[in-house]
């Protein structure tokens, strides 16, 4: 028998130590105590601490974040989901990273623009203080430049759609020979990163075309050929409101060069709530029509769906299951709860009625 090498022996020791630690902390986990000491340590759930809040425009800020040790880095153009507590309630939103991919200080940043009635964006822009601890997810998304950098690039952006593009410009501009940025914003002052973009344009690093929609109206892609004559030769990355992206996809497809366009959609988590709706129990393959006065528990059971249940009056939390998508209304007070597949929310089915189409994780 060969003697075990040092590495596995150490691994075994660590595992054993961990098991002993778990025996000490039961019913909690060692992590629950370690988080008190350092929530950003290696091995912890990924969190970040906001170290600076920089104002970009009247309604946009850049959050500079120190990520936890588990941060695996990102490719410029990708986004992260951040979980932030707004009025005590954890809310998750996705934002594009705008920072250098490997900053020596290890900090990352996202830029957030407040949207009208946006619960999270307004909180981040107007009320967030340095020192706040937030939850993070690893970076994701394929709105990135290919390894083989294209010779000619067009960035077609509007509003906060500039953020992933800024991430690419700040990291890869030296590798790009010919860059046109066609950006829409209500006024010159509303252009996020306006000064930086204009500086790049002034030094000839990029060609910047600004469309100030308050005076010039919305950008029409009919004008594209006149503003960027060689647009069809360029590889294009487009990010902005749905209307712009839909129009762009149509325009590029019509020209037969749909493969030269890449889009990134920011889906606002606005769910239109109605009165009753179709309830889908995907795992059990059941679809039920429920009115706005019937608890989802009753509607599901009537259709033969197996569901956990309890008091049937909203007090015992024995029926809690995640709402994966859609909106439900609390029958006691009319309070609306919405969820998306990226952001499921546990609900009490015995006091919740469908408020539009919704999907339950059962």
């Amino acid at each position: 028998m060969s003697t075990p090498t040092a590495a596995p022996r150490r691994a075994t020791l660590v595992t054993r130590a961990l098991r002993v630690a778990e025996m000490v902390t039961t019913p909690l986990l060692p992590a629950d105590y370690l988080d008190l000491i350092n929530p950003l340590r290696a091995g912890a759930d990924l969190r970040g601490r906001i170290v600076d809040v920089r104002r970009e425009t009247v309604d946009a800020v850049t959050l500079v974040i120190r990520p936890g040790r588990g941060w695996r880095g990102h490719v410029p153009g990708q986004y992260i989901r951040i979980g932030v507590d707004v009025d005590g309630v954890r809310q998750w939103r996705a934002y594009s990273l705008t920072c250098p991919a490997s900053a020596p200080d290890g900090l990352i940043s996202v830029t957030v623009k407040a949207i009208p009635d946006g619960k999270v964006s307004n909180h981040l822009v107007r009320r967030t203080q340095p020192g706040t601890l937030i939850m993070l997810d690893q970076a994701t998304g394929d709105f990135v430049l290919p390894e083989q950098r294209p010779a000619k690039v067009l960035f077609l952006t509007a509003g906060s759609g500039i953020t992933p593009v800024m991430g690419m410009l700040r990291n890869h501009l030296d590798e790009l020979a010919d860059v046109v940025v066609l950006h829409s914003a209500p006024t010159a002052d509303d252009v996020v990163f306006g000064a930086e973009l204009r500086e790049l344009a002034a030094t000839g690093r990029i060609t910047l075309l600004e469309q100030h929609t308050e005076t010039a109206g919305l950008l029409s892609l009919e004008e594209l050929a006149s503003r960027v004559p060689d647009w069809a030769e360029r590889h294009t990355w487009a990010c902005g409101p749905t209307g712009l992206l839909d129009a762009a996809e149509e325009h590029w497809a019509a020209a037969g060069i749909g493969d030269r366009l890449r889009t990134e959609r920011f889906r606002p988590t606005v769910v239109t709530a109605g009165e009753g709706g179709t309830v889908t129990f995907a795992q059990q393959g059941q679809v039920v029509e429920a009115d706005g006065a019937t608890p989802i528990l009753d509607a599901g059971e009537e259709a033969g769906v197996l569901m956990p249940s309890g008091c049937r009056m909203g007090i015992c939390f024995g029926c809690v299951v995640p709402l994966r998508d859609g909106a439900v209304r609390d029958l006691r007070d009319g309070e609306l709860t919405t969820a998306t597949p990226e952001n499921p929310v546990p609900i009490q089915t015995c006091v919740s009625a469908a408020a539009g189409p919704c999907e339950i994780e059962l």
Partner: protein
Amino acid sequence: MTATAEKFDLTIDGSGAGTPQAPAAEATTDATTGARTARTPRTPNSRLSVVTTERRYVPKPSGKPDPVAHLTAEDIEELGRELDALRQEVLGSRGASDAAYIRKVIKAQRWLEMGSRGVLLFSIFPPAWLVGTAGLSVAKIIENMEIGHNVMHGQWDWMRDPKIHSTTWEWDNASPSEFWKHSHNQLHHTYTNVIGRDNDLGYGIMRVDEDQRWVPSYLGQPFYNFLNMLVFEYGIAAYDLELGAYVKGRGKDKETFRRDAMKVVRKIGRQARRDYVIHPVLSGPSFLHTIAANAVANLVRNVWTHSVIMCGHFPEGVETFAKASIEGETRGEWYLRQMLGSANISGSKAMHFMTGNLSHQIEHHLFPDLPSNRYAEVAPKIREICDRYGLTYTTGSLPHQVASAWKQVVVLSLPNPQPGRTRVGIAAEAVGKRVRRRLRGVTGMPRGRQSRVSA
């Protein structure tokens, strides 16, 4: 309806209680998931609405008067609306400061527990033993009461923090949270003080209301209660497992019971290994002292929680309800039952905190899912409502309420007096009968039925 027409659940240990079901629901239970499937269309659950169209009252065997005879159906409906509005008021202002409160409490509790366990590594030195044991006792109490109980009630689910959520929380107690949530949140809070449906009325081993039938075994209940106090966490575990009903052959099926029992045994094992093996071993020369410290901390926690919990529904002045009285019960009537069926403890902020705000038992029972830190502000409003509607708001200091609950346990260990017969006389006669029957070798009715013999 008369007293005799009342379908009295004779299973004193409450094995007649079960999972709440919507009225008119013919349901089957799926043994593996506990999920239920309805077979027939159901009527909407009456407790979802405060609309009350008729006054419902079912007398109890004792013939005690209806405590709310002076209220009309409209009064009860209005009461329900007022309480709904009060709940809404708190929900409307629930936010960041509440979230900060529970996080602060959890953080402080964990530091206190870590610190105390750290000090106990040197428990061979008497001052370290004293400080460590005191700290650990307090930490365990806070963990069970203000944190565990309330988190598992879903009071903090609204924060959507998966680490502080009723579906994920596990507490420092012999009983696994899964079973506790079922017997406590679902059964006790829905059927509060309904004789035959709410097992918390005496935990199936005691008689704490004169409308519960007496059997000779209750003579020993002052002793059982004392014993239960010392080992309360194991009492809760056995109770949540529904051990009593199973032993009597009226509980879960064998397979389910074995599976559940294994979960309890494993949890008890983990808890005991931590307190009586790992932590002492880590203490080295302080091994025995740390064992003693942990045993004392668990004992202190048991005695404290048992005493507080006894004050919730056992003291004098608390009403119980006949089983038939809750058929078709509305939300307004449910509120009424919670108010009359619970008792508060008055005292300092520190006392309220150490009881997990269960000292605001009435408020907790009206709004079991409101954050515990908000009960104190709701309490005067509830008291005012009680005054206005002519309802008893039972409250008293901790020593007074503990004494009152113990008095009930002692007095009700004897049967109710009858005209011309004293409690002791009736008890002596019943015991004598039983002894004579044993001596004659007559087994009488099957064992399972003996508890149904009326006094």
